[in-house]
């Protein structure tokens, strides 16, 4: 077993920087609005009403959140299932993003549902016909799977370094033993969870698309199609690597690391066919259902659809076909950002723009409170990412020999 250059280590950095303080302020702002939401109800902070029951929180925090956390399962499929070890360096950051992403998806759901204290109800009250039930159950299980997948990183960080303060120090040995036991058990069974994670992701990424199918004519025909689940799955797969590239380049910038272009360029090269496949289905669906006629009407829907397709898919697709783009960090970052923004916009379009209910007097636009909470959640996510990257072995530093390989990729099937 020789993972060249793979060396995930805790980065020795100061946690607080001016940027981090800004993020903290944004997060605190969200906390204020969340307090209002829990004290006075959804009506106090959101622009939701009986016509627009779902808004920014479902569209961005949940739907887009799930899509943008897709890097977790695409890299897991690439690195573990296909066993392409050259990508091992991006697996942990992607896993961390997915874990944090899904955690905040769960938070998003928690604050959005009216009776948050009943969030556990779907676990025992089942409705097999409901797409939302499937999404909910899959997300809950997948979240558990992600935490399990993340556990080895915790054990790796603490094995042999357990140092509890004061009186608890007597427990040091026992905790260490438990961690070692856990580590051994996990490394034998990890493959089960990895495959389960990919299957669960495939299921709920597509079912997220099924969600809006039942809205029928209330959804603009440019987006409403029976193949929505397929489009959601394809776009989630297509956005997985761009998201990894996007994060990796931001992280290396903010943590002062050398961008891992040798991996990212290869990932970038894989984006084009995935994006192309998504575009083919999207355009094909548009022509089969003859919905292109709606593009001639100049309104929000047609503009948003055009922007989504042109800037989110067509332009990055063209860019990624060029070797120059794949080799340049700046251009690759631009292309990846466009794809990420395109998928984000697609989810916003599907859940908010396309939803045109009857009897609505004015169309929905998120309230300050909703935007604050969404922005705050993103800020918290970034802060947590930074925290884990600094204190846990997530990011691989190039050039050093492997001290501890990612065991769970290896041991189970050896």
């Amino acid at each position, binding site marked *: 077993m020789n993972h060249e250059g793979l060396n995930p280590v805790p980065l020795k950095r100061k946690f607080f920087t001016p940027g981090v303080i800004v993020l903290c302020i944004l997060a605190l702002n969200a906390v204020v609005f969340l307090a209002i939401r829990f004290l006075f109800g959804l009506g106090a902070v959101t622009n939701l009403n009986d016509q627009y029951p779902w808004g920014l929180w479902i569209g961005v925090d949940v739907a887009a959140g799930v899509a943008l956390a897709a890097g977790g399962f695409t890299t897991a499929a690439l690195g573990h299932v*296909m066993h392409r070890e050259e990508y091992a360096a991006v697996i942990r950051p992607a896993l961390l993003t997915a874990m944090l992403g899904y955690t905040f998806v769960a938070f998003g759901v928690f604050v959005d549902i009216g009776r948050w204290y009943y969030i556990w109800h779907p676990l025992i009250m089942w409705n097999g016909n409901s797409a939302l039930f499937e999404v909910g159950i899959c997300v809950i299980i997948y979240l558990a799977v992600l935490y399990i997948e993340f556990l080895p990183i915790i054990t790796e960080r603490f094995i042999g370094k357990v140092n509890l303060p004061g009186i608890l120090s007597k427990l040091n040995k026992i905790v260490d033993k438990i961690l070692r036991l856990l580590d051994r058990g996990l490394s034998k069974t990890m493959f089960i969870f990895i495959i389960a994670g990919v*299957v669960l992701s495939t299921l709920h990424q597509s079912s997220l698309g099924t969600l809006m199918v039942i809205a029928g004519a209330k959804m603009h025909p440019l987006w409403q199609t029976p193949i929505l689940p397929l489009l959601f799955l394809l776009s989630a797969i297509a956005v997985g690597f761009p998201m990894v590239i996007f994060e990796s380049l931001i992280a290396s910038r903010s943590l002062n690391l050398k961008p891992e272009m040798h991996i990212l360029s290869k990932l970038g090269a894989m984006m084009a066919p995935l994006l192309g496949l998504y575009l083919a289905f999207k355009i094909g669906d548009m022509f089969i259902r003859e919905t292109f006629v709606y593009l001639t009407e100049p309104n929000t829907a047609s503009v948003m659809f055009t922007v989504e397709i042109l800037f989110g898919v067509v332009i990055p697709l063209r860019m990624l076909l060029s070797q120059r783009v794949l080799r340049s960090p700046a251009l690759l970052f631009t292309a990846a950002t466009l794809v990420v923004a395109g998928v984000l916009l697609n989810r916003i379009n599907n859940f908010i723009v396309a939803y045109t209910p009857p009897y609505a007097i004015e169309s929905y636009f998120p309230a300050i409170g909703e935007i604050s909470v969404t922005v705050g959640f993103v800020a918290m996510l970034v802060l947590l990412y930074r925290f884990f990257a600094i204190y846990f072995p997530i990011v691989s530093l190039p050039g050093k020999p492997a001290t501890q390989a990612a065991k769970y990729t290896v041991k189970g099937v050896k």
Partner: protein
Amino acid sequence: MPGKSRRDFLKSSALIGAGITGLSSSSAKATPKNILSPDRMGVLVDTTVCVGCRNCEWACKDAHGLPAGDLESYENRKILEQKRRPDPSALTVINEYSPGKYSNLPVDVKVQCMHCDHPACVSACIVGAFTKEENGSVIWDTGKCIGCRYCMVACPFQIPTFEYDKAINPLITKCDFCFDRTKEGKLPACVDICPVEALTYGPRMELVMIARDRIRRNPDRYINHIFGEAEVGGTSWLYLASKDFNDLGFPELGKDPAPGVSESIQHGIFAYFVPPASLYALLGGMMWLSKRRKELEQEEKI
């Protein structure tokens, strides 16, 4: 070594397979009650008869324990100048539209849950709180509701409403077809109070015949369309009118049940857990093969 791990792998896969099968057999039953009884009841709303007295609004509030006020205060017709929608304080409302073809009187239309034969809310509800009962009513179990509002997204008539202003125990509300009253053999409150019997309560099958008969006998009075007979696969509440239903605030809907497409997708993806299980097996196989190839490559190197 490889042999051992292969056995491990197969064992674990078998275990998971068994788990999934167990899950699927229980999940097949895990759908809410959704009865389409041939004897289900319905209401025929004849908008050419309705006088817009709004007594039904009062009776509905009175029957559901909502603040109703004086019945006399409902004689104020000023409120009909605006188009209203049901909300948590009023589960049914009357809207008034310009006259139809047969009379110069305005057309009054009662709005409430249509009690679909194939309800989208029943299909959509994440916890299966909604049920379609034998008597045709679509009701819901408040105790289960988590307040996700997916029923509001799903409903083709935009009927369920939500108490956005409540921090604790906000509820989904809509017309429940007076399920508690009909259980006791009483009529729905709105049907009971209607002075002109614009609302006829009876078996839905019979109401369709009555509606057809009215159109046949008075072709000048009615347009030839029973709203709810075929819309979204049929609804328990049926409407007759003297002008096009699109001009009376009704959405234009096809004949396919609202949950049809999404349910077939759901059942396609989840058909007895075969597709997810096969995907699991496929990925497991791929993982094992790629692993094996890697190992062989390394053995060769050595």
